[in-house]
Structures are given as C-alpha cells and as structure tokens.
C-alpha cells in the first residue's frame, strides 16, 4: 500500500519582503504572503480548506478568513516548539492531505518582530499572557537567561570545551552563510558579506560561545506555503515539489532552546529522532542530500543538526564546515539563501521557500541539478524532491 504521507507536494510558495519595518499589520503580512502563494500555485482563497501555523503566531484564524474570504475550514492546527516546530507544520499539512481531512492546506508565519516588538531581546516576563512552567520562563529569567541566544549558547559551551573548538570556528560557518546572503536579493544582508575578522569583531552576546554575527536578526515579514496532493499539484499552474518524507519529534524532557535536563544535552534527541524518521520515510540517506537547510537562529544550532543528521561525526561539524563542504561546489551546500542568519528570521519558513527555489532551479545560489533538499528545524524535518 502506498504511504500517502509521501504523496504530497508544495504547490505554491509566497512571501513578503523581509525588512526591519514592514509598515503594515501582521495580518496584512499573512494575507500578502498567502495571496502570493495562491498566485504561484494558480489557486484562489476559496480553494483553501485547511490551515496550519505556530502556536505563537499572533494572527487569529477568523480574522484571516475574513480578510481573505476563506469560506470554510475543515482542518486547523497550531504547532508548539516555536521555530523548532517549523518543519512540523509541513508534516501536519501532509497528514491532513494524506488522510483526506483537507485537500488544500496553507501554512503561514508572519510577524513584525523587529518593528513592533523585539523577539530576541531580554524579557522579564514570559512571552504571551500566560505563565507556564517552561524552563526559560521559570528557571532562566531570574538568573539572567532572558533571551533565546543565551539559551542556545549555554549548553554549547561544553561542546566547545570537549572538542576544542572556539567561537572563531563558528565564524567560518557564518562567513559562508553571509556570502550566500550577499548574492541573494531577497536577503536582509544582500550585498553585505562579512569576513572572519568582522565576525570576530562583532560584540559578545554570551562569551565564550556566541557573538552578534552568530545570531539571526529579528525581521518583519511573512511566508506562506500551499500543500496539496502530488496528483492535484500536477494539474496546477505552479511548478510543485514533492514532499518525499516528513517527520516530527518531541522527546521527553527536551525543550528546543533549553534542552538542559537530559543526561547528555550534547545529544539533541529531537533532531536525532527527526533525522532517523525522515530518512526512513523518504528512503534516502545523508549522502543523497544535495542541499541542506538547517534551522540557524544561532550558529551552534547548525553544528548540532549537522551531527544529528549524520553529515559528520560528533565533534566534527566545524571541521566539515572549514573543509569547504558547505560551499556551493562542496559536498553539502548549506543554507544557500544565507539562512535565518543571512536572509531573515521568518521563524524557519523562509528556508522552505529556498528549498522550493533550489528544486525549481531558480535559487540565487543554485546548486546544479539539485534533486533532494533537506529542511530541518530540530523538532521536525522534511525532504523535498524534484517531481
């Protein structure tokens, strides 16, 4: 029997410009991104019967339906884990389509996280109105662990000590990503490459782990994706890409940015699980991947994912990077849009638009003959294929 989860496709992608001040509401950003995706696919708002977004997206379903004229939703879900869950949105959209719960699912994320609020700045109160028992909220804030970058850095210091790597080693990764961004007109840092010296002269965020240039920059903008069946996608206007496999994992006791309470926080169990499941679902392995898009809110997250996916062994990720492997002519071009660090931080979904562009052959930094693209966000992973 065919696994219907492997018979779905991205039929259209849409986005706004990425900026420091969008000049319009977050709801308008969603509308603009979805309209662009509908236009790309050759569909209308009336075709949408399922929606998926993040729990922390500020826009509400009813207002969105009112604005776009969506008639009736059969399926609606919001996913946890912040950006770590961004790849899970596709997994759930596929589940809806494969099960028949919905036929045309739109995924969105839109925010004015630079102009209206500062997503990455210190917080003395939890984001959102509700106090919950999350690690960062209760146990981090009184000790000065008050923003996402610091959370990402804390466990990684031990990795650096264990394997003898320094922040300058992370710099090689960032320099390559900024080089990609510099030639990507969609990127916030288009035309602005940096040198290793620039990286090393950027200010410390959390010494000895993280400098400013290791961090994504808060950005205004929105991204939308349309998921439907392969069969239907073939009849649509846009050039679709196949979702060859998708996976999710939320393991016991593991929070995305603060996975401190497991025996060995250097093993990112959510990513290890997602990697195993997505390779199994897609029937391929690490060596088959042509382009990897790994969630990089902060540079250490890329190291964790490179190792969890088996692209290199424990402790080897930064040597792998320095060998030139992640350049366009290397064995694994990585974050070819510049990543969240170089293009914009639209909470992971702008990595998917890059993946689709790579498979359509229209990326600014095009990998020749790209056929398989991996997107990982830690708690989820997707492998896209040319169809």
């Amino acid at each position: 029997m065919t696994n219907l989860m492997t018979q779905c496709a991205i039929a259209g992608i849409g986005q706004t410009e990425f900026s420091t001040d969008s000049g319009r509401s977050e709801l308008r950003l969603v509308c603009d991104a979805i309209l662009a995706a509908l236009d790309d696919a050759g569909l209308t708002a009336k075709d949408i019967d399922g929606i998926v977004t993040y729990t922390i997206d500020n826009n509400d379903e009813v207002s969105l339906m009112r604005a776009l004229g969506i008639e009736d939703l059969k399926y609606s879900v919001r996913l946890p884990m912040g950006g770590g869950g961004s790849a899970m949105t596709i997994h759930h959209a596929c589940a809806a389509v494969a099960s028949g719960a919905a036929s045309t699912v739109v995924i969105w994320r839109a925010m004015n996280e630079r102009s209206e609020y500062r997503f990455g700045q210190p917080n003395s109160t939890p984001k959102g109105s509700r106090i919950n028992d999350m690690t960062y909220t209760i146990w981090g804030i009184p000790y000065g662990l008050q923003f996402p970058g610091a959370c990402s850095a804390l466990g990684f210091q031990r990795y650096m000590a264990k394997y003898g790597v320094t922040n300058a080693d992370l710099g090689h990764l960032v320099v390559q990503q900024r080089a990609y961004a510099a030639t990507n007109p969609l990127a916030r840092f288009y035309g602005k490459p940096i040198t290793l010296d620039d990286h090393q002269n950027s200010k410390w965020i959390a010494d000895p782990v993280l400098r400013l240039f290791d961090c994504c920059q808060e950005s205004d903008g929105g991204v939308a994706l349309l998921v439907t069946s392969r069969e239907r996608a073939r009849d649509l206007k846009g050039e679709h890409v196949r979702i060859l496999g998708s996976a999710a994992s939320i393991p016991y006791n593991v929070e995305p940015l603060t996975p401190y309470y497991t025996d060995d926080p250097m093993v990112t169990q959510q990513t290890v699980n997602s990697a195993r499941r997505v390779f199994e679902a897609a029937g391929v392995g690490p060596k088959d991947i042509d382009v990897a898009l790994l969630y990089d809110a902060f540079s250490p997250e890329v190291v964790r994912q490179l190792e969890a996916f088996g692209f290199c062994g424990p402790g080897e990720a930064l040597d792998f990077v320095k060998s030139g492997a992640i350049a366009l002519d290397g064995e694994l071009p990585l974050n070819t849009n510049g990543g969240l660090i170089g293009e914009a931080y639209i909470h992971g979904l702008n990595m998917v638009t890059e993946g689709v562009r790579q498979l359509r052959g229209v990326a600014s930094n095009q990998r020749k003959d790209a056929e398989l693209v991996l997107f990982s966000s830690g708690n989820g992973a997707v492998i896209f294929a040319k169809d």
Partner: protein
Amino acid sequence: MNQQRQSKRLDPMSTRNTDWFWDEAAEGRLSIQKCGNCGAMHHPPRPICPECHSAERVPTPMSGRGTIYSFMRVSYPPPIGFDEPPIVALVDLEEGGIRLITNIVDATLEELVNDAPVVVDFEKTASGKSLPVFRLAGKAGAA
C-alpha cells in the same frame, strides 16, 4: 548570604507547581522534588511524579555541592536585574541526576572550567526573595 548592596535581581515567576522551591530557598535550603511514593527525584518540579504519578511531593534538601556542567557570561543585550554581566551556568548536584540553571557568583569567566566544584549560596531578589546561586569551592567566602 551575599547581600552587600541592594539587589536588582528579578523575582522568579510564581506558579502553583514551583513556588515551594523558592520558599525552601528563603529558608536557606536548596531542595529538590522527591516523590513521597517511589522516591524518584526530579528537577524542575512538576505536579506529579513521572515514574509513578503520585502527587505526594517532598521537598528534599541537597548537600549544596556540585560541579559546573557548562557556563558563559551573558553580556549583550544586558540581562535585566544585573549591574555586571552575570555568569550563567548549569550545575550538576553531587546527589546525581539533578542539573540546575544558576549563576556562579564572585568569579571571573577566566577562573571557570567545566567540572569545577562549586557550593551553593543564596542571593536576594529586589523584593527579598532568595535564589540559590553557586560559588567556586575553596574560594574565600565559599562555605
């Protein structure tokens, strides 16, 4: 107690599941949740035991000794509640299986190494609540 100058530290958030931890700290105890039924110890606190699902939670004082798992100095953007960039660390308690987010106080970044022994102390927040913090064992002022 380290209380030379007026603290600007933020209070911990109050929740029904976690308040007892800070109440213990106010009494000068670093206590961890132990299950009154099966004896399993867990941190951070939770309403029931994940092993046996008993709701009988017994705050159990620890020795206050541990080792540094990892550490960093958070400098920018400046965390709220500190005059100087704080050293934030993960500390493993000697009882085993318990790791805390904390501060290493009265130490420079250069003095710290992974697995260095540390001992607990308590610092006040702006409103007078107590937070368990740690200092390098053997340094002047350490218990």
